[in-house]
């Protein structure tokens, strides 16, 4: 359309131009003629002729002037029309696009809500709800017997509410039917069985914190939070983990073999980028499960070399494990994470110093390779020595995980658990085959 307008205008300008040139030529001729006529003839006649010619010239000039004026006004009006046409077309396009987007949005909302009620948060400015279901079936071939069970069903609800510009609330409420593998010999290592009778449905407030955020460098969490040590405990949720059975030092759940999975108290944390590297910290003062009368203090410092895909972490905590006896303790630990390309390699090591108890030592190394976007293979060597009689054991686990869709994580894992021989206690092996799946939303 605009192209057509442009062509028409060109034709218009051509015709007007020709008229203009013709007028100029006529005027020049008229002005030049009297001069030539003065050269010979009667002076009176010449004067009359000159007057006539002058009148004609004046008339021609007037005509020329009116032609120029009309040309100018015509050009100006065409310019306005062209601008208006372009601007209107652009506006129509914009309106079309906006209306389409609005229709899409309305359609999406309508398909989600329809005639149902819309849920509102009482006071939060933003509310997000999610969760996951984690299910496992396990076959354990032990020294004394073989057992199989659908031994874990966990539903966890995650709720995040934004209370204001700098305030957030995050809650993870778990509904757990868990029958962990247990052992019945004096050191708890032989004759595996599933703890069905000992583990009824449990509801556990896994996380419940409020957070004030000043900036990336300074955030304060109050409430129940994941104890910020290492790699796997921070990742924590089964949907994130290749092996939902956490390393031995994080079992039982929740416990405090080395440190507790969760803490109740206050956690200050933050991070800062330094060039391409990232520094982050956590510092907490909190009570642990089963020991609410003692405050433990601890923290983690981490430094990430982003280009190399390497993160180094230092962990430490000090406190008291019991409210009924003297059981001061200190934990020192380190973790190294390598994450680049298809490789992820997690490593953690911890050592403790315990009052009135032997020291504990734990470490694991866990390389994983992403075969495709959906398939990942991993291996984990996991060692724990609690210092107690029969308390030394290690595990070798290999697994293959599959994500058919983003919201589903299926796993097949073989674990060989070996408890070493100790004074008067023979070694014990258990072979565990587990299929598990986590669905999240």
């Amino acid at each position, binding site marked *: 359309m605009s192209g057509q307008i442009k062509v028409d205008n060109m034709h218009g300008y051509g015709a007007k131009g020709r008229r203009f040139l013709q007028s100029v030529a006529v005027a020049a001729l008229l002005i030049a003629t009297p001069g030539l006529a003065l050269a010979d003839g009667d002076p009176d006649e010449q004067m009359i002729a000159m007057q006539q010619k002058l009148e004609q010239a004046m008339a021609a000039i007037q005509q020329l002037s009116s032609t120029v004026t009309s040309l100018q006004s015509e050009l100006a009006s065409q310019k306005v029309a062209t601008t208006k046409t372009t601007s209107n077309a652009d506006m129509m396009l914009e309106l079309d696009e906006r209306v389409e987007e609005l229709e899409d949005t309305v359609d999406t909302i309508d398909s989600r809500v329809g005639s149902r009620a819309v849920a509102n948060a009482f006071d939060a400015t933003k509310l997000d709800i*999610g969760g996951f279901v984690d299910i496992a079936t396990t076959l354990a071939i032990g020294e004394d017997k073989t057992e199989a069970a659908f031994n874990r069903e966990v539903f966890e609800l995650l709720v995040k509410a934004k209370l204001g510009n700098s305030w957030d609330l995050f809650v993870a409420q778990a509904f757990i039917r868990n029958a962990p593998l247990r052992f019945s010999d004096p050191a708890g290592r032989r004759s595996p069985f599933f703890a069905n009778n000992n583990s009824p449905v449990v509801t556990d407030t896994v996380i419940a914190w409020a957070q004030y955020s000043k900036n990336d460098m300074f955030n304060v969490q109050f409430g129940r939070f994941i104890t910020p040590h290492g790699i796997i405990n921070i990742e924590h949720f089964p949907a*994130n983990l290749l092996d939902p059975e956490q390393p031995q030092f994080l079992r039982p759940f929740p416990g405090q073999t080395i440190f507790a999975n969760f803490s109740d108290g206050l956690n200050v944390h933050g991070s800062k980028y330094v060039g391409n590297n990232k520094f982050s910290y956590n510092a907490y003062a909190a009570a642990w499960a089963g020991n609410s009368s003692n405050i433990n203090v601890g923290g983690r410092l981490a430094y990430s070399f982003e280009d190399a895909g390497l993160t180094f972490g230092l962990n430490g905590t000090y406190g008291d494990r019991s409210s009924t006896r003297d059981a001061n303790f200190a934990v020192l630990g380190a973790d190294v994470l390598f994450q680049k390309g298809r490789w992820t390699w997690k490593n953690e090591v911890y050592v403790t110093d315990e009052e009135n108890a032997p020291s504990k030592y734990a470490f694991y190394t866990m390389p994983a390779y992403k075969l495709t976007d959906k398939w990942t293979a991993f291996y984990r060597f996991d060692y724990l020595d609690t210092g107690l009689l029969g308390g030394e054991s290690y595990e070798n686990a290999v697994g293959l995980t599959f994500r058919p869709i983003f919201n589903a994580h299926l796993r097949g894992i073989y674990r060989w658990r070996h408890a070493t021989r100790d004074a008067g206690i023979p070694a014990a092996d258990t072979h565990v085959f587990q299929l598990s799946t986590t669905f999240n939303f």
Partner: protein
Amino acid sequence: MRTLFSKFALATVTAAVLTMMSTPALAENFAIVVNAENGFSGDQGTLQTQIKRLYLKEQSAWPGGIESIPFGREEASPEQMAFEQFILGMSSAEIQGHWLKLKQIRGETPPRGIGSARILARQIGKNPGAFGVVLSSEAAAIAGGKVLFEFSGN
């Protein structure tokens, strides 16, 4: 044997053609657009790294202290695909994994994806910390916004 070879060759060619057809054409140029008041500057690498951190919510504010408001584009749109490939440098699975982790640990959600470039432009014009990706040809028309940097979809 010859038939087998022919079938294999045919299958290979077919697969190559299908792969080429399924590969999205990202030959266009794209622009990261920010609010006109945004004073952040630097070389292409610095800008790209900053945008990546803000989009992935590894940082919540621009270096000047303005709260970041990242916007994505419609899933599988040329703009979003180019952004993920050339700015984030991550596959879709890696990006999904990242958001899953943040959702479960901190309750964070991915940036809102906007289909219309004009609505994105309005958001960028209104919010000092906002940014998003558009086709380079659309960038000039964004009132109240400016191009932080451009990148090629090749």
